[in-house]
Each structure stands twice: as structure tokens, then as C-alpha cells.
């Protein structure tokens, strides 16, 4: 294998690894938008909370309290992060999205979630302080080598878990009754309601799933992230970009866009550094918005006058 080819393959693998993580976070955003036409600005903060939950599970709960070995503790942390994310999703639905739903106001919920985001970040700052928390997944130290390509067991785990979650979600949406009902609600809430589907419960379910995904994403991201209360802010930039590039509410588009962003980052991070990556991604985003405001995959909708 030539040097260049090895490099390309290596970075592609890294890119897919990162991409899977981003997709997990972005999927939640796009799901919520699809069903509710709302953006949860606090979504990336759910990721942070999930990561903190994972941290405490790995370092305290799993190992010290339950006496589990490191690997089991890490796997447990994914579950707790998922649970914490789900709980947060329930809370924000009950507090913000459900009460404001009848009003039909587009912007109030968005602004409310901005408030929640600021609140969450600074609450965590008060709880945890500004110094980054560090925890390692026990899988990060195991390297696997195929020819000249290296990757860690952690990256295999991440890709396996996230792609299973994404696949499960995709199948769920496409083939189960609840999944189809969700899509019905996304398309036309009133009519879905008339057909005996309770949109409120389904919307709540969607938000819980989306937030659970975000939380679990936090557990998977935790070892790679600089874990401060403001970690969400770095992730949300890319998450928004992914959702817009892929098209709001469009699952396939989000998956493609997420992998794309991950790959771009893997290839450019050594030359640019993470701050500039944000810049590149957002410039791409603005270009995208200037040229095709509805995203790569979606169609144009004429406004109904």
C-alpha cells in the first residue's frame, strides 16, 4: 500500500468515526425539526450533560460504587448518558415545546431554548467548574492494526454503536407503525390527529429519542472532547451546519452531511486546528445557504399564499 493511499484510508476511517458521532448529534436536531418545525438550541448541551453523566459513571458509579471493570463501566456509561438525555428531552418538551405549541409562533420556542442552553451551560459551570474533565474509554488504548492502517477499539465501538443506533432509528421510522405515525405527524399534524394519532405523545416521543441520542453521543464523544460545560458550543456549530446542509427534517441528508463534515474535519484538522475547522464549516454553510437554502437533498417548497 502506498503512503498516500494509506494516509487517505486512515483519514477516511477517522472521518467516518467523527462523522458517526456528528450524525448522532445532528440526527436528534433534524428529528425534532421534522416533527415540530422547531430547533432545540439546547440540543448540544444535552450532549455535554450526557458526557458528564458518562464521566461520573465511568469514574465513580460504575467502578467505585458498583465495582465493575472499566470496560463494563464504560458500556454502562452509555446507558446512563442515554437515560439522562431522555430525561432532559422529556423536561424540555414539557417546559418549552408543549406549552408553546398551540400558539404557532415560530420564534418563541427557539429563543426559549437559547435561554435553556445558556442556563444549562452556566449551571454546569457552577457545578463542575471551568477546568476540562478528562476520562478515557478503556477501549481507547487497544489498537487494532490492518496493514498500515491503525484504529482503536474505541473507534470500532463508536462506529458500531452509532451506526446501529442510526440504522435502528431508520428502520423504526420506515417500518413500524409508530415510526410511520411520526412521519405522518411531521407532514401534517392536523390530519394525523384526525386519523386517531395523538400528535402530542408522538412529539414527546420524538424529542425523547432525539435527546437520548444526543446524550449517548456525549458518552461516545466524551473521551475525544475537551469536556467543559461549554463543550456543547463547539459541537452545535457543526450540528447546525450538518442539519442545514442535509436539509432540515431530512434523515438521509443529515447522515450524508454528517459523514461529510466528519471526513472534511479528519482531512483538514492537522493543517487547520479545530477553531479554523469551525470557520471552514460555517463558511461552507453560509455558501450553502446562499445557493440552496433548503439543503442538498430537499426540494423547494413554494410558499402557500
Amino acid at each position, binding site marked *: 500500500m502506498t503512503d498516500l493511499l494509506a494516509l487517505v484510508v486512515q483519514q477516511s476511517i477517522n472521518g467516518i468515526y467523527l462523522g458517526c458521532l456528528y450524525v448522532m448529534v445532528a440526527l436528534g436536531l433534524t428529528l425534532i425539526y421534522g416533527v415540530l418545525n422547531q430547533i432545540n438550541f439546547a440540543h448540544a448541551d444535552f450532549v455535554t450533560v450526557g458526557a458528564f453523566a458518562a464521566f461520573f459513571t465511568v469514574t465513580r458509579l460504575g467502578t467505585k460504587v458498583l465495582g465493575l471493570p472499566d470496560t463494563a463501566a464504560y458500556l454502562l456509561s452509555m446507558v446512563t448518558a442515554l437515560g439522562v438525555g431522555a430525561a432532559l428531552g422529556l423536561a424540555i418538551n414539557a417546559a418549552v415545546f408543549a406549552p408553546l405549541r398551540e400558539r404557532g409562533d415560530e420564534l418563541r420556542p*427557539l*429563543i426559549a431554548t437559547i435561554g435553556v442552553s*445558556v442556563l*444549562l451551560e452556566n449551571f454546569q459551570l457552577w457545578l463542575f467548574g471551568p477546568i476540562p474533565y478528562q476520562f478515557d474509554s478503556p477501549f481507547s488504548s487497544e489498537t487494532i492494526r490492518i496493514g498500515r492502517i491503525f484504529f482503536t477499539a474505541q473507534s470500532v465501538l463508536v462506529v458500531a454503536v452509532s451506526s446501529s443506533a442510526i440504522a435502528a432509528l431508520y428502520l423504526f421510522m420506515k417500518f413500524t407503525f409508530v415510526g410511520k405515525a411520526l412521519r405522518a405527524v411531521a407532514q401534517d399534524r392536523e390530519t394525523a390527529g384526525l386519523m386517531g394519532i395523538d400528535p402530542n405523545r408522538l412529539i414527546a416521543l420524538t424529542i425523547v429519542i432525539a435527546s437520548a441520542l444526543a446524550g449517548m453521543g456525549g458518552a461516545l464523544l466524551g473521551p475525544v472532547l475537551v469536556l467543559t460545560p461549554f463543550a456543547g458550543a463547539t459541537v452545535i*456549530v457543526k450540528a447546525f451546519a450538518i442539519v442545514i446542509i442535509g436539509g432540515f427534517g431530512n434523515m438521509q441528508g443529515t447522515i450524508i452531511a454528517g459523514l461529510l463534515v466528519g471526513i472534511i474535519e479528519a482531512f483538514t484538522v492537522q493543517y487547520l486546528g479545530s*477553531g479554523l475547522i*469551525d470557520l471552514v464549516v460555517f463558511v461552507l*454553510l*453560509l455558501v450553502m445557504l446562499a445557493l440552496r437554502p433548503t439543503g442538498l437533498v430537499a426540494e423547494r417548497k413554494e410558499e402557500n399564499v
Partner: protein
Amino acid sequence: MSARFAALLAAVLVVAMLPWLLQTPYWRGILVLCAMNVLLALSLNLVLGYTGQLNLGQSAFFAIGAYVSTILVKTYGWNFWAASLAAVGAAGLLGLALAAFAVRLRGHYLAIASLGFAVITYQVLVNWEKVTEGVRGIYGILPPVGSTIGLFYLVAGIALLVYVLIDNLVRSPVGDTLRAIREDEISAASLGINGALWKAFAFGLGAAIAGLAGCFYPGFVGTLVPDAFNIIESFTMMAMVIVGGMGTMIGPVIGAIVLTFLPEVLREFGEFRLMIYGLALTLVVLFMPGGIVQAWRTLVGKPITGNR
């Protein structure tokens, strides 16, 4: 005209007296900050409250005002006022650039695009070290007026002037036009209103005013680092506008004053400043979307008709 004039006179008197009521240098500094926040809140309110554009990138214009004026003074030896004029112009131009996006995008898309704008500006400030000194910062910046009291009178005076001008604008047919765009852009177009033009106007003017506030910030603090213009500042401005009362004139002023002083008054809770903003913003949006102004009007028994 007479009632307004009396109110203006009262405001001038209050402003004149404030530095003598709060005598320590620390509190006088807070007064200067408050005056700057009033300017910023007024600038965002023009775009968000009156024209209905969800602009999350206002911190970018604040930053441009600060950096352009400071660099012109420190690196090129310009006079403060000339540099400020140029900085205001630069901020206004950048505002027009953002308006170009606002013309084609609505609601959530605009919110994210404007956020992107702010993030890009921030990253440029951090990374273009040759010009901005990046995170190292620029030091030894002098304010245009030596004393804190003097600086306060200057900034507060400018804020008062800007308030009067915008108030005039909002009471005039321009205000009707902007609010029409806010309420329903399509029917506004059916009345002959050129949405793109007036959005550009609102963004440009709003950006220029934010840039103007930015000119006084580095001198006040003494140093200039990009972190002072993080996107959290956009959210802070938004909190001030919304908590005070979006789409009214006095609302942003009240919001700026309350959110500047509240964390100071609750001294022990100083580190809770941002938490308070987040909480206040969320609660206001959920329960009293018209902010303090709406609460006041409900209390006093005045019905909410239109806006002012």
C-alpha cells in the same frame, strides 16, 4: 411633543445625577457598561423587535466596532473620532452583508446563518494575529475621555441621542414599514414595501449602532481580546431586549439596565450572571413574552394595542 420632551428632560437629569448617586469607581464603571449595553440593546431591538429578523450575530458588529477603531488608533495613529467613524462605517457595511442573507432566509435559517456570521467573525479575530494580535490581545488602550464620569456622560449622551433618533424613526412611517415586514412580509410586499431594501436598512443601522458601542468598549476596559465578543454576547443582548420588552422603545433600555445591575446587586451571586440571563430569558419567553414592559402595562391596566 411636549410629553416626550418632558420625559427626555427627565432622562437627561437622571443621567446627569447618576454618577453622584453611585460614587465608587467600581459602580461608576458599571454605569459605563450599562450605557454601552443600552446602546447594544437598542441596536438589536431595531432588527429583532421592530423588523422581526432573528439576528443572533449582533456581537460580530460590536466586535468590528471595537477592533477597527482600536487598530486604526494604535497601529495607524488615527484620531479616536475619525477611527470610530470608520469603525461604525465598517460595522454598518458588515451589517449590510448579513442583510443579504436575511433577504433570502427566514426564521430558523436566518438565526443559524447569523450565528455562523458571529462565529466566523470571532474566528477571524482569533486567527488573524498579524492584525488583531489574536488571543494575546491588544493592551494599553486609552479611552477618549480620561475620567470614568466623563466616559459615562459621553456614552450615555450618545445612547440618549440614539434613543431619540430611533424613537423618531419608529414613530414615523419608517416604523410602520418595518413593523409591516415583521408581521407579514408577503402582504407588506403587496403594499409596495421592498422587504429587501428595508431589511438592509435595519441590519445596517443596527450594526452601525452596535459598532458605535464597540468603539468605547476597549478604552473602557483597557485591553482588547476576542473572547469579549464571543457569541454568548449575542445571547446576552437578546436577553436584554426580550426581558425588557421586545418591539418597544423603552423595553430594551429597561432590559439593559436590569440585566446589567441585577447580577451586581446580587453580589454573592456574581458568578450566576449568565445563569440569571438564561433563566430570565427562558421564563420571559415562556410566560411573559412582552417582557417587563408587558408586565408593567398589565399591572397598570393599559391594554396592549400595537406596539410603541
